[in-house]
């Protein structure tokens, strides 16, 4: 399968990339790691006339961790996320999740920016970013703007990003020290997209859950932030019955598609199990 013809561009600065995107118009697409885009180009589901490769834009490659905020450049690869001990110390769910994405070769090229900008409900990072309450920074010809990950996803492959915009940074508040976390992902085989997955971060004080946030992957045509389910946990002792009630509240907002990963009822059921496991594991890890 050889993709259709296109012109290849490799700008070396963000301004040049924005300029190219505006002058080339809607027939141009950005390429980051290419591991969602190139498969789609082979299937002719994407047929750009121009590809603008971001690999030389150095300003998109940094990971910054401080006590209040973490920010990730769009061109940071999954492998680089896994390798950063500083990031792992502050927000361990990112390594746990990245290790469950695809395989080593794909993680060497696939980027965090491509993963969240792509808009595929199967991508794992969007639910993580919704769960963390992350903000996306978009740069375009009119300057930059910020949008919450929770407002970014409209439908499968439709996001709030405008054609001429480049996602530059993903930022979020550094989770409270001692928080519990877990990403539980059910998949058919290693490297597969989720049948259903749940992301949880919570804090516990004196045996009582103080804060909680839950995100869900691949159980609707967008990632889901399960606000009500998390609300059930807050104030509880994270006992089995409460966790079950929270999982049911999460399942209630899912609307998975029927695909090779199983019938709708099965995927909803798995979503509930993933929420229960993720909450239980996070509770155990919380200090």
């Amino acid at each position: 399968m050889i993709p259709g013809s296109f012109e290849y561009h490799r700008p070396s600065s963000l301004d040049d990339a924005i300029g190219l995107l505006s002058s080339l118009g809607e027939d141009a697409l950005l390429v980051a790691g290419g591991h969602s885009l190139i498969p789609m180009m082979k299937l002719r589901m994407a047929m750009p006339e121009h590809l603008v490769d971001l690999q030389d834009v150095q300003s998109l490659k940094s990971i910054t961790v401080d006590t209040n905020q973490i920010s990730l450049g769009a061109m940071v690869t999954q492998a680089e996320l896994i390798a950063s001990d500083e990031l792992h110390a502050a927000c361990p769910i990112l390594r746990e999740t990245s290790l469950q994405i695809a395989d080593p070769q794909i993680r060497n090229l696939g980027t965090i920016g491509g993963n969240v900008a792509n808009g595929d409900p199967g991508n794992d990072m969007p639910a993580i970013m919704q769960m963390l309450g992350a903000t996306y920074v978009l740069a375009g010809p009119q300057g930059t703007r910020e949008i919450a990950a929770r407002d970014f996803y409209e439908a499968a492959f439709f996001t709030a990003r405008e054609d001429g915009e480049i996602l530059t940074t993903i930022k979020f508040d550094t989770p409270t020290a001692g928080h519990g976390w877990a990403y539980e992902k059910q998949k058919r085989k290693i490297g597969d997209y989720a049948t259903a997955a749940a992301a949880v971060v919570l804090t516990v004080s004196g045996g009582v859950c103080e804060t909680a946030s839950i995100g869900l992957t691949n159980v609707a045509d967008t990632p889901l932030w399960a606000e009500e389910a998390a609300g059930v946990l807050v104030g509880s002792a994270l006992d089995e019955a409460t966790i079950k009630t929270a999982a049911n509240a999460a399942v209630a907002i899912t609307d998975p598609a029927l695909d090779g990963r199983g019938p709708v009822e099965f995927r909803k059921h798995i979503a509930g199990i993933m929420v229960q496991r993720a909450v239980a594991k996070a509770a155990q890890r919380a200090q």
Partner: protein
Amino acid sequence: MSDIKINMTINGQAVETTADPRTLLIHFLREDQNLTGPHIGCDTSHCGACTVDMNGKSVKSCTVFVGQANGADIVTIEGIAEADGTLHALQEAFRQNHGLQCGFCTPGMITRAYRLLQENPNPTEEEIRYGISGNLCRCTGYQNIVKSIQIAAEELSHKEAAE
């Protein structure tokens, strides 16, 4: 569409040519450079038969455009043995330990393991299995592949200790 200039290093040799941007790195290597070691198994980024080393990282060359690899340092299975033909410890271990049956996955397996052992010279069995999780083999059941990589790792660390 207009061809682009290509400059890269492949197995230590500088290559300067032109190519159509739609060319995938695997096709460039196999058809333009006559390096038919890396294979096309699935063409869908799953099997890893097309694995090559790009700037010190394992990648699936069926999912890289030739332009993306411009300026890169590429190593294929053809570049892993020594110049005089002496096999690399991994190649020798696969040969001695029945690490292959039909051999179709082998170039990708060895090229991946070559990088894995540089990232992690003493991997556990589990680390080897996770490390080659992007490479599929339809014949061996993986047992002898894992064993070959373990034996090569020991061999390489003895060699290192001796030097």
